[in-house]
């Protein structure tokens, strides 16, 4: 007879603790690829998110309450983001979702947030379709129609390329979208796409596609993929004797790119959201704080965007005066001229931000700032 009483007492205690905790904190949910193939995306954005939450709490929190981060790892696996979002919404009762860097995984969670009428802010999902899921889905980065245009102009004006090849990933919404927008600018401007080849996520052998690209004799190759595949592509291309520049989008952004690709990446470029070399005061301040928090780790674009996503959310909660879903949504939609680490965020009627793109040049095993393109 003793055990049930003890269990009951424990259960009652647990409920009490649970209640008291949920009363004085605001729960923010985050899902990210903290492990797996694209762990680099999840880790950097997560570090930015954690830093922002800690700063806000140190400064007294929001509406007199502390922010509590509840995060889930989707292991870079298809399907896991939806599970994580459901868990965060139904069990943890978070007031908003932060995630993801990848467009494909953001698209998995977005319908769930939309149905629950809980706002979701994607730090770096650039595919146009993400925010089209519904009026509760936001992002704090530019979108691929812009990024595709920037890279098409860059190819034409800076690389002086007339004939290019495109290698895109068929199982990736981001990659296909970016390839499409690139073509839409590059071809009307007089450029020729001489070869278009596909690969799948997780592929390691690209020699077949690259041999076909070599036969097409192009000036440059556009690879709108993620860093894991892109680094191997460039490496194998150099082994096959292809010497032209390769260039990609923000999916290339991770230190693993250079770890895998090494010297093969010399003379390659990619567009992204942010450069830690930017001398802007806000950026320098963010870089210093970030390095202090994460043992000298240099922040990447997704660190800055994760950081900004949290601040944009905190700002909206303050203006809404509540964490109630619909009201918070309206406040988020009204975000204007919000200065953050990745630039100024203004959300348009499609809930997208428009920000400058940064082009990074890869030289001597290092990523260096090349130029900024205004929207």
């Amino acid at each position, binding site marked *: 007879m003793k055990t049930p009483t003890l269990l009951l007492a424990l259960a009652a205690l647990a409920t009490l603790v649970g209640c008291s905790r949920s009363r004085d904190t605001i729960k923010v949910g985050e899902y990210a690829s903290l492990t797996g*193939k694209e762990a680099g995306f999840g880790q950097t954005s997560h570090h930015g998110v954690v830093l922002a939450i800690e700063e806000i709490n140190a400064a007294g929190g929001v509406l007199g309450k502390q922010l509590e981060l509840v995060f889930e790892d989707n292991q*870079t696996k298809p399907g896991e983001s939806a599970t994580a979002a459901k868990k965060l919404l139904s069990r943890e009762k978070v007031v908003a979702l932060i995630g993801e860097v990848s467009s494909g995984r953001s698209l998995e969670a977005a319908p769930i947030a939309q149905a629950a009428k809980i706002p979701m802010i994607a730090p770096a999902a650039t595919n146009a379709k993400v925010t089209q899921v519904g009026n509760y889905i936001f992002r704090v980065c530019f979108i691929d129609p812009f990024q595709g245009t920037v890279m098409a102009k860059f190819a034409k004006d800076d690389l002086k390329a007339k004939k290019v090849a495109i290698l895109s990933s068929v199982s990736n919404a981001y990659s296909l979208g970016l390839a499409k927008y690139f073509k839409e600018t590059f071809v009307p401007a007089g450029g020729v796409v001489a070869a278009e080849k596909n690969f799948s996520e997780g592929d*390691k052998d690209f020699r*077949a596609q690259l041999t076909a690209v070599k036969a097409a004799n192009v000036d440059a190759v556009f690879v709108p993929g993620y860093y894991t595949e892109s680094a191997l592509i460039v490496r194998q291309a150099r*082994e096959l*004797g292809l*010497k032209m520049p390769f260039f990609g989008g923000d999916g290339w952004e991770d230190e693993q790119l250079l770890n895998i690709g090494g010297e093969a990446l010399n003379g390659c470029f990619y567009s992204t959201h942010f450069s830690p070399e930017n001398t802007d005061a806000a950026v320098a301040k963010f870089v210093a704080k970030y390095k202090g928090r994460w043992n000298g780790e240099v922040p990447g674009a997704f660190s800055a965007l994760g950081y900004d996503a949290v601040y944009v959310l905190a700002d909206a909660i303050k203006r809404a005066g509540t964490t109630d879903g619909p009201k918070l949504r309206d406040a988020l939609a009204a975000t204007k001229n919000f200065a953050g680490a990745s630039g100024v965020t203004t959300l348009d009627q499609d809930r997208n931000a428009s920000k400058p793109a940064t082009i990074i040049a890869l030289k001597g095993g290092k990523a260096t700032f090349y130029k900024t393109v205004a929207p």
Partner: protein
Amino acid sequence: MTTQSESLNSQLSTPLSEFLQQLLNGLSLGAIYALIALGYTMVYGVLRFINFAHSDVFMVGAFIGYYAGKLVPENTIWGGLVVLALSMLGCAVLGMTIERLAYRPLRGAATLNVLITAIGVSLLLEYSGQVFFGAAPRTFPAIFPVKNFSVGGLVISTNQLSVIVVAALLMVALQFIVHRTKIGTAMRAVSLNPKAAQLVGINIDVVISFTFGLGSALAAAGGILYALNYPSIDPLMGVMPGLKAFVAAVLGGIGNIPGAALGGLILGTVETFVNGSQWSTYKDAIAFAILIIIMLFRPAGLLGKFTVEKV
């Protein structure tokens, strides 16, 4: 790495040199499939079950190479060979341990039980790999010196060549072991009839242990060669190549050693040619469609012998 192939950019690839280049790409990929397929086929030949953990032994092989590669100087032939030997040895021990702990207690049980155990061991290796090695991909060191030669419009990398050469040497060695040595004769005897083999004094446990060790060592070699060509390794890297190698083994006739080699080479070459064509999206679909077609016309595989099962 790039300086070796200077004359290339100027030369426009002719259709013939493009064809030869793709053939070379395909053969080097196929050689790796063949090495993994040999392990599947050997275990099947002796025990009549598919060891699904084999593709994860392949992964462990690459990881042993990754850690051993840090102990020896990079870009030396002897260092590379030491790494290769260490990895093959480590995986042979791993394969024998798996057999001893997971499969031997089930010997004589229904095939389905063993099969499900094999899937369990496979998942155990994959996810303990994520715990011990971490889930993020790692960069495999360049343990062998790399050079690129150009012949006409054709670029040959020493990595691709060494894959084909090492695979061929190992296959010849395997053929020799199976057909010319005492233990090989015992393996074939166990494969033919385990009870009769026991009756003539063959120690079945030793033979099966040896088969697992040999197959796992080949998987380790495959893992190292794969990692040299595609230097990004992670705990789930064995899944796709493992599946392809399994298909290769079935394609060539499961249980048949030259069949596994042939199946691997066919699959690798077909995959590469499809990849280089406009149908690259359907790469895996076409590879598996070929399997289905061959199975329809030759149910025992290309080199397999169809046997009627007696009830």
